[in-house]
């Protein structure tokens, strides 16, 4: 469809969509914050202490630190994917929130971008909570850990954009379970969140390196531990590549779905 050129600053039209979701989140902030802090704390304490005793050090750092840096990333992935599937589908299909937005002077691309950036924001909120918990437990190595925040925003956007493809094709909520079980969970288990990649067969590692999560972890883990990541450009490029692919494909699919 031809785009209008006369409106100023077209790139900011997603903002009201983002703000709408933020306002709803703020209304229910209390319980969700408890969840944001409580769950990772439980994971870290249970898994970290439990496994940590047995495992000791992994890759030169205490297991608890290793695990914390992994969970910072995986929770960004989970939060963004969940928001871009269950919540976005609810707004698109059940509540018809998007149709109201499209009756106003907004286009499909504005709605999709606003939703993806909101999902990325949720990822950032979750990861920040975990990072704070980890810092409180003395697991964070230095101030360079602040770089983790923009990275989780990108990780969140990347996974939200991929999940939005699933949402664009979804007829009901069932398909999201498949995506979680068949795509996200294997990626989560094999990408180095819970144990280092080099303990896996070379073939598996080669495949995992084609997927975004491992790259996110290789960026975040050194930053949390107090070191410096290597191959930064490659990792960012992979994440950005998946993000742009997801954005382009999901926007196209949703345009086709809603504009028919």
């Amino acid at each position, binding site marked *: *469809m*031809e785009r*209008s050129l*006369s*409106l100023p600053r077209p790139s900011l039209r997603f903002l*009201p*969509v983002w*703000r*709408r979701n933020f*306002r*709803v989140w703020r*209304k229910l902030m209390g319980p969700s914050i408890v969840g944001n802090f409580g769950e990772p704390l439980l994971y870290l304490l249970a898994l970290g202490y439990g496994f940590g005793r047995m495992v000791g050090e992994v890759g030169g750092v205490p297991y608890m630190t290793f695990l914390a840096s992994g969970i910072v990333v995986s929770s960004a992935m989970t939060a963004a994917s969940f928001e871009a599937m269950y919540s976005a589908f609810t707004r698109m299909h059940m*509540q*018809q*929130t998007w*149709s*109201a*937005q*499209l*009756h*106003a*002077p*907004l*286009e499909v691309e504005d709605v999709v971008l606003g939703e993806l950036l909101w999902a990325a924001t949720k990822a950032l909120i979750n990861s920040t909570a975990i990072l704070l918990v980890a810092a409180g437990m003395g697991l964070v190595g230095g101030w360079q850990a602040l770089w983790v925040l923009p990275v989780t925003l990108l990780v969140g956007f990347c996974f939200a954009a991929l999940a939005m493809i699933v949402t664009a094709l979804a007829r009901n909520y069932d398909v999201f379970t498949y995506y979680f079980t068949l795509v996200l969970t294997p990626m989560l288990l094999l990408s180095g969140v819970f144990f280092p990649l080099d303990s896996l067969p070379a073939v598996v590692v080669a495949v995992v390196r084609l997927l975004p999560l491992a790259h996110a972890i290789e960026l975040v883990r050194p930053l949390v531990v107090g070191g410096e990541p290597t191959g930064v450009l490659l990792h960012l490029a992979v994440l950005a590549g998946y993000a742009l692919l997801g954005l382009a494909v999901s926007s196209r699919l949703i345009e086709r779905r809603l*504009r*028919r």
Partner: protein
Amino acid sequence: MRLDPLGNPSSVAARQDGAAVAVRARGLSKRYGDRVVVDGVDLCVRAGECFGLLGPNGAGKTTTLRMLLGLTPPSAGSIEVLGLPVPARAREMRRRAGVVPQFDNLDPDFTVAENLATYASYFGLKGPGLKARIAELLEYAQLADRADAPIQALSGGMKRRLTLARALINDPALLVLDEPTTGLDPQARQHIWERLRRLLNQGRTLILTTHYMEEAERLCDRAAIMDHGRIVACDSPAALIRAHIEPHVIELRARDADTFLGRPHAFAGVRVEHVGETVLLYAHDRERLLAAAGALPFIQRPANLEDVFLKLTGRELRD
């Protein structure tokens, strides 16, 4: 942008130009594969009028509205709304249009007042004027005392009124309403009609679809009757009735209709129609009509838009 929607809207200027056109569509078509939903529709809606789009289910009314709003691209044809080509500049056009959709899409995560504020944000409206504006619209919708109520606590009529108020948030010159009173009780419908009348008096242009012929007759300056994706007639309700229906009508209902049909029932100068459990007799000559009905109890009434509708779109059920 002016924030005085209920006083003196910007559309008045358009109305003063007598020939101003709010919507013009030519050769409008929409196909889904082999299925033709809208088939070469030509439409012209004058600024400041209430224009009705009537037709049985599946006639293509909603699809036509969606194309006019730039919500779905036409397969063929050209559209101009408020002087802007659609869909090319639909977004700009929608800044000056309001939409009341067939199915409520109020935001269930917000209260009544928050719904208006959130919708305003989609138009980029903000500032001190907005608060006054929302208060005014709540008053207009008779929901001022419900400003902080959740959407789930509203009745069907209240939801419709809020949806209508929401559609006015941007002071639109054109309002598009898809079945605005479907499912409402008689009081709630009267309420909506009164509010739509006020909008017309302010000089706004209204396009509405409806299944209620009484509603169309009451509100619409002109109406188009659609069937199978085409417009089969378009004029003022009075002119449509004059052009298509004999002036005298008698209705026979239920058992009386059966009795009538059970006897020889061809009468010179009398047209006999059978719909559901009703037999309708039409004639130019009142005496012939009365003779045809004989001793059966009947209801005599003036011809109305429903007669036109049934004549032009047929009597079989549409689902």
